């Protein structure tokens, strides 16, 4: 039984941990542009042209 409570508490902890991570991502602008990065990875490095 106590292991069950422990898991639930750990669940809550992990939930809020990732929520915090998400807040950090949004606040630092990593979610501002969701289109370009997926394209950009296919462009070769300008310096190697």
């Amino acid at each position, binding site marked *: 039984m106590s292991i069950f409570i422990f898991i639930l508490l750990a*669940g*809550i902890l992990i939930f809020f941990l990732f929520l915090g991570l*998400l807040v950090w991502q*949004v606040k630092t602008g990593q979610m*501002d542009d969701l289109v370009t990065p997926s394209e950009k990875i296919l462009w070769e490095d300008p310096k190697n042209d």
Partner: protein
Amino acid sequence: MEVAVSHACKHCGRPAGTSLFCCAGCEGAFEFIHSTGMGEFYNKLSKPLSTVKQKRFEYWNQPQITTAFVKSLQGGLSQAELLLDGMSCPACGWLIERAPLFAPFIRKTEVDLGSSKVKVIFDSHCAFSEVGELFNKIGYAPTLTDPISTASFKKRQNRQWILRTAVALASQMASMHVNYTLYAGLLDGMNTTMVKAVGLVSLVISLPAVFYSAVPFYRGAWNALKLKTWNLDLLVSLSIALGFVASAINALRGINDIYFDAVTMLIAFLLLGRLVVMFSEKRISIDKNVLLLELLGTMADAKPGDIIPVKSGQAFPCDGTVTKGKSLINSAWLTGEEMPTQIKPGSSVYAGSLNLGSPVEIQVTEPMEKTRIANLISGLSNIKKGELSRFSEKFEKILVASVLLLVLGLGTFYFLEGKSLWMRWISVLLVTCPCAMGLAVPAVLSTALKQALRRGIIIKGGEVFERLAQSDAVVFDKTGTLTTSEFEIENEDWLIDAEEKLRLLPVLGWAAHQSSHPVLSALTKKYFRGEKPALTQIKETLGQGLEFTYQGHSYQLGSRKFLQLPSSKDNQTEILFSEDGILKNVFVVRSEIRSEAMSLVAALKKRFSVWMLSGDKKAAVKQTADLLNLEHQKALYEQTPEMKMEFLNTLFEHYKVVMVGDGVNDSLAFKKAHVGIGIGGAASSTLEACDVYLTRPDLNLIQEIFTASHKVKKSILLCLAWAVVYNVLGVMLVLYGFLGPLVCAVLMPLSSLTVVAFATGRKYFPGGT
């Protein structure tokens, strides 16, 4: 019979006739891109480029602009954000991010394809206008939209919406997982402590969604209550509140009936719907100072009564009266016409008109902020759109009202009966939750908006489709919309043999190149091939013609009046060319009707009342009307921007009007019309004022837009019909006790997913989903 050879422009792919490019702008861009070694760009393209619009950028160096738009960074660098309206495919991003390779003063460019913006970091000692010119050279027309302060405010707001949605989704998924244990417990039995523990965890996890993410719904509901009306937000807030409170009580008492997952799902799906539309809408707004300075060049610090000189090539900075000098001015911002008009002492001139001829002096009559152009631009933000109630809004009202009544009735019934059926009550709320509506309509709109963008059509908001589908009259501007604003040689009549023609052509071409008159530019375009014969004693009589000598002969190029010949009967624009007083050639010039204009007008006339408004003279307007097969009383001439707007007001009594135009002079009408469709030109005010903006001057797109708007309307109606059927069925099953809250909570996302799949799979515009 002329053999029709038609090439596609090598830059933008528009039909270019016999030449390789459709315009000088495209040719310049193509050559510049190749000269930088970036020719590979053209192989990467996945959609046509927009036609190059050549703009002027000197005004970007004005302090009003630089302080608002340029941010100083450390190390002698500056940063600015530009809107490139023609940029949306990855190839453009590839080219632009390589800018530092061919333009060393640009240190870094960062492209945001989603919002068509580019962040540029450049050397502070280089003028801001050079940045604009560089992007213009490679084929884009950069526009300054929001000053830094507004832009960062919008960015913060965007981030908040993303965060709200993401938090709600996280809560929803987590609480669903926790609830699995309860679902399993339903079958196997579970001891009370465990149920209580799971319930409490579920409660804690749903807190961020209920108390942070859902705040906009509460605000919306509160606003509706204050106005003594009701809306979707009210129903949503009520569902959230009841669902949450009931579940919380049960959780604390250790009872199995908790529905935090359904409550959080409601919040998450509705927010997701709003976010998706927000991302695909292009709500572009342009700063007033930009619009004004683009036309004026500088802000004059002049008071009424001051006398100020206006040089050739400069825009009049104020409204005034000419006191000294004669000249020609281009008042395209007022009339839409490139054809210059003459001014002499006593004539009034308006700020924003361009002095093409010799220097003049004017006496200022109005202070800067009261000039006609300033009034026009401030008018843009004050005009209210004609009210058109959106049908999904009406539908929403009815749905919400009926659900609320049902829930209220049910509540009193259960209360009077004294039965403990209140969980059934909550089931009704959850099953009628407008997820399908809150998610399907956004899905339809965002899909259509994205497909439009791929066709080079920028649509500012989803509601534009509904407005378009309801409209029944179309008003066109003439010049620049139905006709091109450039002049073309329609007919030429050579009075000499081929050999002599060959001798005179270079002279003719180079001579025409000397003049700034737009009519002569038709000759330059056709006959100037880079040869520059040594012409001497060139003298231009403004608005009339040129005279010059070459190898001992004297030449005249200009109107009939200039060559002292009797004027012709018909109202044609003619250019005559003579050598030593002997007439050699007669050209007839006209601005050309776009090839698609006739079929477009013919097609629209079947379903719409079609009108034409033009700032041009009577004869030219009637001629165009005849060519387009338009009744003369529906073709209005010599219209000012204010008159156009007033005319729309009178049309509103009978019609819902779509305005199609291209310039500053149409922008008031754009704002006033139910829908304003702007054809991409050089003026930013078009982009600011219109609801739909075509990045390519292709009139066929207008028909595509109308077709798409009807498809969008149909899809929305289908989705709503599905939502109704689903809700009625669901409510009935709940009332008869077949569906518990648990099954409702499962069915809810299922219905949403089906409608979303349907909505996103449809093709609204040609050319792929």
